[in-house]
């Protein structure tokens, strides 16, 4: 349809896009030239950053503010109802349970992920180059799959079948082989046991990431410091904790914060494994439930605003520590 055809329109769009971009920068340049020589030097860079900054504002800031506003509205997002959503959330025992779950996730997963990554990195460094490659590849492999694929794999590990039916769960098979009874793992919520089972999945996924970064950091520790410590009579453990770890602290922090932020937003694992039931729900999943299943814009916006407020300090710490590292170089 049309004289030009699809390819023609595509080329035309590219041509217009280039023309507009060139024109925009030329225009900004002319604008900057209107100022005095001194000012020009200072603001030229700012001027050229303007389009990118505008895009960021539109795509990031505007939705942020809009969601914040929507958290004070009702189910359809059209009526202002003040703090009612927040009051409802904080007075419902379910929501307090969800906050507890999030707290457990952030208390355990980043620390254990870093520990596992550190362990594999250290041990891998000491078994010779060939075995190092094999072990590290194995640990890193889970990073190549999505969270939902991981959930599918692990659901076959945790699955429970009614008595007498053919056993298809790996964990239950092991338990039965050891003489125990098969358990419905994912519905056991005493002491949030099922949440811990889900945490294992994330640790399995993220340990590779931690290991790669920490391994590079450990290898960057100067040999002289280690040798010096050995000469002074330190054994391996002391060398590790008192010489190596302090020198890779920045990387440990960085990995820790990254995994922490990821864990705050966890959602797909909960969705795919338990559908948020049996006390496994977290903030990310609750938002999904409120917005996509209940169509409740107000409540969903309130939940996600709370999540943003909780994540913001972590991002600030991350940026600060990244800046410090920059300064050190």
């Amino acid at each position: 349809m049309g004289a030009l055809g699809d390819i023609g329109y595509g080329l035309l769009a590219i041509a217009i896009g280039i023309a507009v971009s060139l024109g925009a920068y030329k225009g900004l340049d002319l604008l900057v030239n209107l100022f005095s020589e001194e000012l020009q030097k200072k603001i030229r860079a700012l001027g050229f950053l303007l389009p990118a900054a505008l895009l960021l504002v539109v795509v990031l800031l505007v939705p942020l503010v809009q969601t914040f506003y929507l958290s004070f509205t009702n189910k359809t997002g059209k009526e202002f109802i003040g703090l009612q959503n927040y009051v409802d959330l904080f007075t419902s025992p379910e929501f307090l349970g969800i906050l507890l779950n999030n707290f457990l996730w952030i208390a355990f997963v980043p620390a254990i992920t870093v520990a596992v990554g550190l362990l594999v990195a250290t041990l891998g460094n000491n078994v010779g180059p060939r075995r190092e490659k094999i072990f590290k590849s194995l640990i890193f492999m889970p990073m190549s799959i999505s969270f939902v694929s991981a959930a599918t794999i692990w659901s076959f590990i945790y699955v429970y079948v009614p008595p007498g039916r053919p056993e298809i769960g790996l964990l239950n098979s092991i338990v039965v082989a050891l003489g125990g009874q098969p358990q419905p793992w994912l519905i056991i919520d005493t002491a949030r046991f099922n949440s811990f089972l889900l945490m294992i999945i994330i640790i399995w996924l993220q340990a590779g990431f931690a290991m790669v970064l920490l391994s590079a950091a450990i290898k960057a520790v100067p040999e002289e410091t280690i040798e010096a410590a050995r000469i002074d009579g330190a054994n391996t453990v002391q060398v590790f904790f008192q010489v190596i770890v302090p020198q890779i602290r920045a990387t440990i922090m960085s990995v820790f914060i990254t995994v922490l932020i990821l864990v705050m937003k966890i959602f797909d694992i909960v969705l795919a494994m338990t559908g948020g039931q049996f006390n496994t729900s977290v903030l990310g999943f609750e938002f999904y439930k409120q917005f996509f299943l209940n169509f409740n814009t107000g409540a969903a916006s309130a939940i996600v605003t709370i999540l943003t407020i909780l994540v913001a300090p972590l991002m600030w710490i991350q940026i600060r520590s990244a800046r410090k590292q920059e300064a050190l170089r």
Partner: protein
Amino acid sequence: MKAKRFLTAAAVLAVAGMSLTGCAASAPAGDGKVTIYGAYGEAQAAAIQAELDAWTASEEGNPQVTFTSLASFDTDIKVKIESGQSPDIGVWPQPGGLLDQVENLLPLSDVIDLAPIQETLVPGWDTLAQKDGSIYGLPLSANVKTLVFYNPTEFEKNGYTVPTTDAEMTALIEQIKADGTGYPFCAGIESGTATGWPITDWIEQYVLDYYGVDTYNQWIAGDVKFSEIPKATDKVAEMLLTEGNVNGGGTSMVTDGFGNTAPLFETGGKAKGQCFMLRQGSFITDFFPDAIKAEVAAEDYTHADVFTLPAPEGASAGVLGGGDLAAAFTNDQDVAKVLNFILSDKLGTIMAEKSSFVSPHKTFDTALYPTELGKKVGQAMADAEVFGFDGSDRMPSEVNAEFWLAGTDWVAGKIDWATAAERIQAKY
């Protein structure tokens, strides 16, 4: 002079304008293509596409129709509408979602003549998607849920007979347990994020039976509370949650998928988790093992057959069911032609043959159901005296979601019904 010519011109224009508005009252012609979005599973989606293609070819001027199944229909259709990609016709698996979108839909009477359709529909269907006196949705396919599937070979082997009354049903349950030949019921309720919906079917059936269709409708609307239907919930607890009635009890029910029909065809007895009855909607035949499906398709009912769930003593024999309702987004002649076809009792020639389709029309030719099983199910719908649409599909989505969640927790034994009722009622 000028004024006169002006007035004449104005008069001519006015007349022309009025005649044009006369023309504009009839719908635009349409572009020969109609899109439908629905929620059918693979088999039914393929079947309806085949039937629509046959219809297009059958008559000159019939538009081409494309039926697309959306993966998570309730979420996806909302996204499509909000992004401006709404189809010409939307087919909802429940009236609740359809009624939520009324501001984007057209009253069906604006697009087609409803009278001939309402004449052939089973009573009760046309009031489901009504708002402010206008009908926004009418059914094109249905499923019957007041059915119990069983394995005739196993029944015969153990000397059991199909119960025709509730008393016989209770006796059969006791006998199965006493003989130790297996478990009376298969009753998995797991279904991903929708886990719990099968138990809501059980409860709704007995609310319809024990309390009648008027109280049933009031209960759905929230006027009768969840705590005020004890006869129904006690009956369900008696049939499913009594020790020994279901393999593994409540814990197994919440982890066992609703489509896990294999135990019904198991022959290893109690040790292998064999069950004797499966109360479920007619669509469950699509979940039978392939060998059994082939048998049923070949009208071999030695391993799978169905009987209607008996109503309790003194209660009415209600038929619970669900269905898919079509609503219109666009008004043009092509859409009108398509709607007139799919909402009539003519739809189903191919669908009945290739999928577990049941027509919501009394006048549907039951000879078109390819199998005896299909005929039994279709007849149950056509003969329905008291028809109730699956209650949880008509409740507001939050209540529905909480019904599933609290129902699951109740079955798993984590809370009692009073707590569950409170949680669900609080969402109204």
